[in-house]
C-alpha cells in the first residue's frame, strides 16, 4: 500500500495547473483494467480528476517521457517521480537530454509496486477488479475473492529496492528516505557460481523466449538514441530470427552493453517484458562488474558524473585479467 494517496497528488496537480506554474501533468492514467495503469499527459483539471490514479500498479518511470514532451511543451511539465525514477531523471540530465527549466518535479514516496504476474499466480485468471489498500483485494469473474498482502507480490526490483532517497526534485511530498543496502547482486552471484553448462542452459531458456518486441528498449530511460542500431532494416538483426537463438542473445547483450555505466537499475526492462525474461540480471551483471573493476558507481546519483565507459585510468584492468582472482 502506498503511503501517499491519489487525492493528495490530484489536489497538488490541479493547484499547480490552475495557478499556471505548469502547463501539463505527466501522470498515471487508469487503463482498461485496474492493473494496466498507463502513463499519460493530462492537460486539464477535468482529465486529472477523471482518470488520474496512484496505486500499487504505478510502476512506470516517467523520466524518459520528458525527453520528447519537453521539446513540445510551452510551459513547464509537472512530473511525479518515485525515488528510483529520480536516478534516471538525473542520468538524463547528465546527458543533456532535456531542459531542467521546463520540468517541475515532485518527489513522491514509494512503498514498492505490485507485480500483476505474481497476483495472477495466486488469484488465477479472470481478474475483474483489484482494490489496493491495506491488503490487495482481488475479485475474479468466477466470484472468487482473494486478499493478498502487498509485500508478497512486490515487483522484483522493489524487493531489492536500492534507494528510497530522492536525488532530484523541486518539491517533496512525504518524508525523505535513505539509500538502502540491497541484495540486488545476489542473483547475479548465484548465476556466476553455476557451472558453464548450467548457466548456458539458463540463458538459453530465458533468452530464447524473446519475441523481439523491443519493449525493453522502448521503456528504458537510458535508451534515448534518436536512431537505434536495432531499427536499421538493413542490419539483418532487427527482427525475430527464424533460425536459432543467438540473435536474441546478441540483441540482449548489445542492449545491455549500450546502457552499461548509464543504467540506473530502475528495473523497467524486466517489468515490461511480456515474456518475463529477467533482463535486469544482464544489466546488473554490468553494474556489478563496473563496481568491482572500476570502483563503486551508481548512475544518476549526481548530475554531471562521468560514466565509467566514457572514462579511463592508465592502469585499468586488462581484459585478460578479468577472470583472474575469481578462484577459477
Amino acid at each position, binding site marked *: 500500500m502506498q503511503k501517499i494517496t491519489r487525492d493528495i497528488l490530484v489536489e497538488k496537480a490541479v493547484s499547480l495547473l490552475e495557478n499556471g506554474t505548469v502547463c501539463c501533468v505527466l501522470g498515471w492514467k487508469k487503463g482498461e483494467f485496474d492493473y494496466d495503469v498507463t502513463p499519460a499527459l493530462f492537460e486539464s483539471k477535468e482529465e486529472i480528476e477523471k482518470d488520474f490514479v496512484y496505486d500499487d500498479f504505478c510502476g512506470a518511470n516517467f523520466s524518459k517521457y520528458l525527453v520528447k514532451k519537453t521539446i513540445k511543451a510551452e510551459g513547464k511539465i509537472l512530473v511525479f517521480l518515485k525515488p528510483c525514477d529520480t536516478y534516471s531523471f538525473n542520468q538524463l540530465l547528465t546527458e543533456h537530454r532535456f531542459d531542467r527549466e521546463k520540468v517541475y518535479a515532485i518527489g513522491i514516496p514509494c512503498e514498492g509496486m505490485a507485480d500483476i504476474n505474481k497476483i495472477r499466480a495466486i488469484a488465477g485468471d479472470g481478474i475483474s477488479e483489484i482494490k489496493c489498500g491495506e491488503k490487495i483485494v482481488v475479485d475474479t469473474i468466477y466470484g472468487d475473492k482473494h486478499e493478498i498482502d502487498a509485500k508478497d507480490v512486490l515487483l522484483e526490483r522493489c524487493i531489492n529496492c536500492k534507494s528510497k532517497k530522492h536525488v532530484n526534485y523541486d518539491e517533496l511530498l512525504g518524508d525523505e528516505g535513505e539509500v538502502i543496502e540491497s541484495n540486488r547482486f545476489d542473483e547475479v552471484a548465484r548465476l556466476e557460481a553455476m557451472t558453464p553448462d548450467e548457466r548456458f542452459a539458463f540463458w538459453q531458456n530465458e533468452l530464447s523466449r524473446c519475441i523481439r518486441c523491443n519493449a525493453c528498449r522502448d521503456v528504458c530511460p537510458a535508451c534515448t538514441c534518436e536512431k537505434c542500431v536495432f531499427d536499421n532494416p538493413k542490419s539483418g538483426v532487427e527482427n525475430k530470427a527464424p533460425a536459432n537463438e543467438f540473435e536474441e542473445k546478441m540483441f540482449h547483450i548489445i542492449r545491455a552493453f549500450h546502457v552499461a555505466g548509464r543504467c540506473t537499475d530502475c528495473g523497467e526492462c524486466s517489468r515490461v517484458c511480456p515474456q518475463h525474461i529477467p533482463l535486469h540480471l544482464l544489466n546488473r551483471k554490468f553494474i556489478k562488474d563496473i563496481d568491482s573493476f572500476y570502483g563503486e558507481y551508481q548512475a544518476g546519483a549526481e548530475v554531471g558524473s562521468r560514466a565509467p565507459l*566514457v572514462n579511463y585510468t592508465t592502469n585499468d584492468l586488462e581484459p585478460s*585479467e578479468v577472470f583472474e582472482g575469481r578462484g577459477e
Partner: protein
Amino acid sequence: MQVKEYKPLIVAFCCNWCSYAGADLAGNNRLNYPADVKIIRVPCSCRVNPMFVLRAFQRGADGVILCGCHPGDCHYTSGNYYTRRRMALLFSMLDYLCIERERTRVEWVSAAEGAKFAATMNDFAEKVAALGENKRLEDLRCKK
C-alpha cells in the same frame, strides 16, 4: 567419405597504426602464423563495436582477437584505454552467458613486434582449435 580437417576461423581486428603494421613485419620476416587468421584493419582498436565481435561469431568465426597499440601509445591518444574497459566488460558478459572465454582475446602489439604478432596468433589459434567448432554462437542462416 573424406572427413574434412577442422581448422578454426579466426577474426583479428588490427589497429592500422600498430598491429596491422606488426602483421606486415611478421610477413616480411617470414614468420609463420596460421592462414585461418583473417585480419580486418580498423583505424583504432576502439573502433571495434561489441556488435562487430558478436557478428563475427554469428557468421561463423571460432575466435575473435583484437590487437591494438600498447596502452599509452594510441595514435589518437586514448582510444585503446576505452577499448580496454569495453572489452573487459564485454568478455565478462560473454562468459556470463557462457561463451568460452578462450574464444575472445585482446592483445597489445606494436608495429615493431612482428614476432609477438606471430606468436600471439599461433597461440590463439591453438587454443581456439582445442575448443573446437563454435556451436553456441553461430547462426545457421550464415552457414555455407
